[in-house]
């Protein structure tokens, strides 16, 4: 039987030259690749069992077994992997200034609830024990390395810890699985985690399976629960800027948690998170967790449109005076109401507000109210402002749309260029390569080493001054100050040129308005509007592009939101469906 075991250990690695698995033996007993004739350092020690004394085989065998153990690493579950990622992300959020309760209470709670709902832990019959008889095998050696792992959220002092992460059945599962893994490894091991294969095959109705993007849904839900000053677009941008672990988050797993095979599909990511996708996942997760109504979003919350509008007005260098107009639109549309803003997953139709997109949409609507953005009126108003500013150099200057456009266009183009360059230079691959099977391991590692060497070589050709490392995280991407003479700051400019007094009220000089969408699509497609760029004025296109870049979303998504704000604002017009709609005059 010793020999049999030995044969199992036959050399099955891929050739480092040509990736084939086809080995022959040279006269010296070394393995060589029959397809490319590459000779390895490895040699077959047992050629003929008759010649070699038994004792030696045993010794060899033991050596291999021990090596085997350390190579295979710890036993761990997929959900533990995700837990580890969530832990890292929570830590990162804490470092960004988010209160510690998020990590210790909220996220932990959500996660626990998830494990419970998905029947992975904290319940009577965890999914893994079904249909499998737990085999008791008292082997305390590796009795859950995880239980003693101090870094995990489960070990953070919290009320849930007392209940104990590891229930009795858990221990049983673990053991039974260990057996099944041992069996698997003899055929072909398909994952480093214990349940990687089962996990990727698990398909149950109503089950929300964890994925890497899902971790961000958890983060965002926690942020929302805590009413933190981080919007979804901020969160995703921090991910993109590597302030929050996401791409290759698995490489920070403990050394002994080995990943390969199916784990690759579960933990490997080759895309940045997408706004729409994470937004949908957030609702999905919240519904699955059956969460109660979230704390109210009131006027003093960062996520309230009035505050977000202020923030974005500053960000894009628009006059502060516009804020009262955005507040007015928010009020008229009812978008500032707590009932409208607060997320309630158990309501009939679970939906949450895209706070950042909506705030930006309100600003676009206000710009349309003031300047019409028909590639005509905004320029003639700019001429007026220019003339006025020339004559009255001492007064507070009138806001000049043209000048603003010129400055923003330049700043935006530069930003975008830098962003594109940085993306093109992004290094996706982790230091720990992911491979499909043990056979692929040496190839994967050799490739990695090769890439690292090539990179080293070429980095000597690059200018010694490295690009100023990681940007420090900020919720602002543009910075406008009065001191900067190169780039005019418009925050203090006045809207006098575009408003006129009438009695006690202020009216917009412009009395026209056009709707971004005339008719909403009622069919079952997911988008209610379509955005065909060329149908719209250049100014409108520019403004959509500018804002959608800031939020890292598609312009069409913002266009849709603008249309939805207009739908609320011009409710009557929509019900009458008049073609020309005039802007509402309103009081200040």
């Amino acid at each position: 039987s010793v020999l049999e075991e030995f044969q199992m250990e036959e050399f099955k690695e891929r050739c480092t030259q040509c990736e084939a698995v086809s080995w022959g033996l040279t006269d010296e007993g070394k393995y060589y690749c029959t397809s490319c004739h590459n000779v390895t350092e490895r040699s077959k020690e047992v050629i003929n069992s008759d010649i070699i004394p038994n004792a030696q085989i045993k010794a060899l065998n033991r050596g291999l077994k021990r090596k085997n153990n350390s190579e295979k690493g710890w036993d761990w579950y997929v959900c533990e992997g995700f837990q580890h990622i969530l832990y890292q992300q929570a830590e990162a959020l804490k470092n960004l200034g988010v209160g510690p309760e998020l990590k210790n209470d909220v996220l932990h709670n959500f996660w626990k609830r998830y494990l419970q709902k998905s029947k992975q832990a904290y319940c009577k019959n965890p999914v893994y024990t079904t249909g499998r008889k737990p085999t008791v095998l008292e082997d305390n050696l590796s009795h859950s390395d995880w239980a003693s792992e101090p870094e995990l959220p489960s070990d953070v002092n919290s009320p849930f810890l007392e209940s104990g992460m590891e229930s009795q059945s858990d221990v049983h599962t673990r053991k039974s699985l260990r057996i099944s893994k041992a069996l698997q490894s003899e055929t072909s091991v398909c994952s480093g985690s214990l349940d990687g294969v089962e996990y990727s095959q698990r398909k149950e109705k109503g089950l929300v399976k964890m994925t890497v993007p899902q971790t961000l849904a958890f983060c965002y839900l926690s942020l929302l629960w805590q009413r933190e000053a981080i919007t979804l677009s901020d969160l995703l941008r921090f991910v993109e800027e590597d302030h929050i672990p996401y791409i290759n988050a698995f490489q920070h797993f403990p050394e002994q948690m080995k990943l390969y095979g199916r784990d690759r599909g579960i933990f490997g990511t080759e895309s940045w998170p997408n706004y729409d996708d994470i937004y949908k996942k957030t609702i999905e997760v919240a519904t699955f967790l059956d969460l109660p109504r979230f704390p109210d979003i009131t006027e003093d919350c960062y996520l309230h449109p009035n505050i977000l509008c202020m923030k974005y007005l500053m960000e894009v260098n628009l006059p502060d005076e516009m804020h009262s107009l955005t507040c007015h639109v928010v009020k008229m549309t009812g978008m500032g109401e707590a009932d409208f803003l607060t997320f309630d997953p158990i309501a009939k139709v679970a939906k949450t507000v895209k706070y950042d997109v909506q705030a930006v949409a309100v600003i676009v609507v206000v710009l349309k109210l003031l300047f019409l953005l028909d590639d005509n009126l905004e320029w003639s108003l700019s001429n007026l402002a220019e003339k006025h500013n020339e004559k009255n150099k001492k007064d507070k200057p009138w806001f000049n749309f043209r000048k603003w456009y010129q400055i923003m266009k330049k700043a935006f183009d530069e930003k975008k260029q830098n962003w594109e360059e940085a993306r093109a230079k992004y290094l996706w691959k982790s230091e720990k390569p992911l491979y499909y099977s043990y056979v692929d391991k040496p190839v994967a590692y050799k490739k990695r080493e090769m890439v690292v060497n090539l990179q080293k070589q070429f980095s000597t050709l690059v200018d010694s001054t490295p690009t100023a490392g990681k940007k420090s995280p900020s919720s602002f991407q543009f910075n406008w100050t009065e001191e900067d003479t190169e780039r005019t700051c418009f925050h203090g400019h006045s809207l006098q040129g575009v408003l006129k007094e009438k009695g006690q009220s202020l009216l917009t000089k412009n009395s026209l308005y056009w709707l971004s969408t005339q008719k909403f699509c009622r069919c079952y497609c997911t988008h209610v509007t379509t955005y065909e760029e060329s149908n719209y004025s250049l100014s409108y296109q520019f403004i959509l592009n500018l804002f959608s870049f800031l939020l890292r979303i598609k312009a069409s998504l913002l266009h849709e939101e603008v249309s939805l704000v207009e739908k609320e604002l011009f409710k009557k017009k929509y019900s009458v469906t008049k073609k020309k709609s005039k802007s509402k005059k309103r009081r200040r």
Partner: protein
Amino acid sequence: MSRAASLPVIYSAQSVIGMSDFSEELKGPVTDDEQVETSVLSGAGMHFPWLQTYIETVAIGGKRKKDFAQTTSACLSFIQEALLKHQWQQAAEYMHSYFQTLEDSDSYKRQAAPEIIWKLGSEILFYHPKSNVETFNTFADRMKNIGIMNYLKISLQHALYLLHHGMLEDAKRKLSEAETWRHGEKTSSREILINLIQAYKGLLQYYTWSKKKRELSKLDKDDYAYSAVAQDVFNHSWKTSVNISALIKMPGVWDPFVKSYVEMLEFYGDRDGAQEVLTNYAYDEKFPSNPNAHIYLYNFLKRQKAPRSKLISVLKILYQIVPSHKLMLEFHTLLRKSEKEEHHKLGLEVLFGVLDFAGCTKNITAWKYLAKYVKKTLMGNHLVWVQEEWKSRKNWWPSFHFSYFWAKSDWKEDTALACEKAFVAGLLLGKGCRYFRYILKQDHQILGKKIKRMKRSVKKYSIVNPRL
């Protein structure tokens, strides 16, 4: 050595920009004749890089491409842009990120990556100010050993790079390494590469040989060193012929290899061997049409003093491929001297043919031959032959050759040429033709007599006014 040992087009197409410049550089100046010698693998498969990307996008359909794929393809565009603008530094910076395509999870792209990286990387290292031979060597050695697909190609280009830097010995070593490289199955594409590698090695040996030969010619036969050098020369030729002969048997354009091989065969008196090689090179239908093949064969036969009919048959083919070649005048002479009437007619055709080309309009010999030969033909009562040739040209030759402008400028530049042309113009267009009249009007002391004679001949023989 014959620097015409140009880089053969090993890659079937330039799927990434860059290598083209690189190969231009490697070509070096063409020192032989005016014949441009190139080596092109025949039947190289066509490849459309743009089509590939198109197909990819179609296949993906509405599915979102992974950001990895997006950023790496953006990275590739940035590298290409930087290379176009000769911003080697920036290119190197992006290259640093582009290496990760070697680990692409898309196996198709992963397999294509080494070749793209090699092309871009070698281009950058060729020009980058901080790069040197050592850097290039390290890079090439690394790239060779990623997979087995590119080992031979890279080895060959590596050798050519070293050649470009004058490192002949190192180049030779690289070629030998590649030649003895152990590999898997022998595929046909690999076989061609091996032949090419061996042939380049042979070419380098030829270079040494011809240097030795020159030394030998300087030495006295009684010199004590003579026999040693002579022995050397002999050894080299033997190795070279083995190395080159395999390649030139395969269909393709192998000019530099064929030339040096033939030179060596001739040197050792193997005329039959040389002739066989050249005949095969020129006449084997599997080989692509190649004017140089016929030129080599012709020159060889001329050296061997082959009969006229044989020379004519070789040049006949060249005439069909390159009617404007300078050998056509030699061809005409051969035809004129021939006894066959059909050759005489062809001789006229050939001359007209040469002068159809803009590059030959100022070739005085051609005009002189034409003037003489047209007159001779007309005297020999073959008016029909001339008319036949003239028929297709009478619409455009007058303005192409015989305009008033040309008369003036030709006379100013080269009176002799102007006279020959005027004579032809007179014969073909009659004495009223502007070119002829202009030259006639010029008063020239030395040419006076000639012009008078010309005038008489035109009157007598011009096809415009055939003797009634």
